[in-house]
């Protein structure tokens, strides 16, 4: 193995994972290999198990069968407190109890670091909020914000949690469950550019997306759930072909080239 290949060796992976809740099969036979430094989009129709896969990869849910491995060790062996220092998960929707302000919520992202605070601890919250354009909402009560504003606050919280590279060199992982679903057009694209920038700094970014065009434009790699032949993983341009899209989503699809040369799809 050359050193370049070694660098691209998957660090977060799951093999033949199955998740059941009672009699219901939420995720069947899923195997993915994720590398840091890139944006991976998890795609698939409703109920295909995207969020389940993300929760398994985050360590939030134990798979019924199969295993998840991070840095060559089973994920469960890392311990939730140690994982919290290097892995953040932005939830799809999150009801917050009590009247916490947006700034309070972003500050909770620093909870795992309270025993070993960074030198610029107070700056981190403000800078994370600036990145997701929620500085003006800092003193507003979270529960009074719109869905998109809430999503940007939770994104800022996830970024605050992972703000500094780990002193031990451990890879940081940013997992996001439909981060763009509630955002307006401009914020969708600025959020995706932000994720690309974080990936460029070596963070592993894994996002559940519904918008195939966003995935086509910003994701290095896609994981498609819900195809007849099972899970598909690979480079975005190779996997996300019109035939697959029609087979998985049942939508006729026509590729067009956008002004900047990126391939996008027209549906119907």
């Amino acid at each position: 193995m050359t050193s370049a290949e070694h660098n691209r060796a998957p660090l977060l992976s799951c093999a033949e994972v199955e998740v059941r809740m009672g009699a219901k099969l939420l995720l069947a036979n899923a195997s993915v290999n994720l590398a840091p430094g890139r944006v991976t989009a998890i795609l698939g129709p409703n109920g295909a198990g995207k969020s389940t896969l993300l929760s398994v990869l985050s360590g939030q849910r134990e798979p019924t069968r199969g295993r998840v491995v991070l840095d060559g060790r089973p994920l469960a062996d890392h311990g939730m407190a140690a994982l919290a220092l290097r892995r953040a998960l932005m939830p799809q929707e999150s009801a917050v109890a009590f009247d916490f302000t947006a700034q309070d919520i972003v500050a909770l992202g620093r909870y795992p670091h309270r025993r070993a605070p960074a030198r610029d601890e107070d700056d981190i919250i403000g800078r994370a909020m600036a990145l997701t354009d929620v500085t003006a909402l800092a003193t507003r009560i979270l529960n009074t914000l719109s869905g998109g504003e809430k999503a940007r606050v939770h994104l800022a919280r996830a970024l605050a949690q992972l703000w500094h590279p780990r002193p031990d060199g451990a890879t940081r992982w940013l997992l996001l469950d439909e981060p763009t679903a509630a955002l307006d057009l401009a914020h969708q694209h600025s959020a995706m550019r932000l994720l690309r920038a974080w990936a460029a700094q070596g963070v592993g970014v894994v996002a559940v997306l519904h918008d195939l065009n966003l995935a086509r434009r910003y994701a290095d790699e896609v994981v498609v759930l819900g195809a007849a032949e099972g899970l598909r993983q690979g480079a975005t341009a190779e996997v996300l072909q019109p035939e697959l899209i029609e087979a998985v989503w049942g939508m006729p699809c026509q590729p067009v080239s956008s002004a900047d040369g990126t391939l996008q799809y027209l549906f119907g």
Partner: protein
Amino acid sequence: MSQRLGFGTVLCGSMLLLAVAFATGAISGAYAISLSQLWNVLASVGQGSAGNPSPEHLVFLNIRLPRLILGMAAGAGLGMAGTLMQGLFRNPLADPGLIGISSGAALAAGITIVLGAWLWPVLPRTLGSWTLVAMAFGGGFIVTLLIYGLSRSEGGTRMALMLLAGIAINALASAGLGLLSVMATDEQLRSLQFWLLGSLGGARWSAVLLVCAAVFLSCWAAASLASPLNAIALGEAQAALLGVDVERTKRRAVVITAVAVGAITATTGIIGFIGLIAPHWVRMLAGPDHRVVLPASALLGAVLVLAADTVARTVIAPAELPLGVLTAFIGVPVFLLMLRHFRGRI
């Protein structure tokens, strides 16, 4: 957005209020003591001169002081326990009384009073009030677990389920206490009545010290739960992803609440609504951060109980109003206003 007071302002303000409530409680009552007399009593205690104690000396040290201290400890414990339950249930309407913890403790205490001699022929003589406290603790503990189990769904608790389960448990407890009152002797009946209405009248130094110890230990243990409870406001799943040991936090909160509420209820009977009102008012003033809500609710709870007890023993002196009746008169309107405020989320 609302302007929030700083941590220091809120804590200093509550301590000032507590000092005022304590002084007011100390000088008023069936036997009025003037401020200068109070000062003389405190000074003579400080000098340790016993000699020939004045009547106000005897009244203050033997009757009023233990009662004031019991009131402060009970109020602090209830305010703190209310905050813990609300943080754990992620729900501002959780109150140890409303969701049945106090009545569970009272029912267990009632069983001990009426049936104790029959159920444990040997124990009550030797362990006396300790059996009562242990039983009240057990009753509160079981109810807390039951309510938590019943009202949990999808990683959170459902407000409506929790309140309905509380209604059911309160109904069961009052039926149980009704049944016990039929079986009770006259003396036991008076004891039972005392549980249901709540009173600081039973303040004897031994009981006061027991409650103080239980409340002090509970508050000390609760302090470490403030930050995890902030994270749990995001939901249990998100808190776990931030590295909070959610199960351990829950276990601790439940045990702490049961210890504090059990010890308080075993000594004072049911004092409702303090655990609901105190944290609610603190949150309105200072925001929901548990690092300030926990200590400030304990202080404000102490203020509320002291103030209510002072009213209870002065308005119809020398007779007394039951304390629990008074706290309900204050608490129910506040609760109804809160229901109105939170109606969209039930």
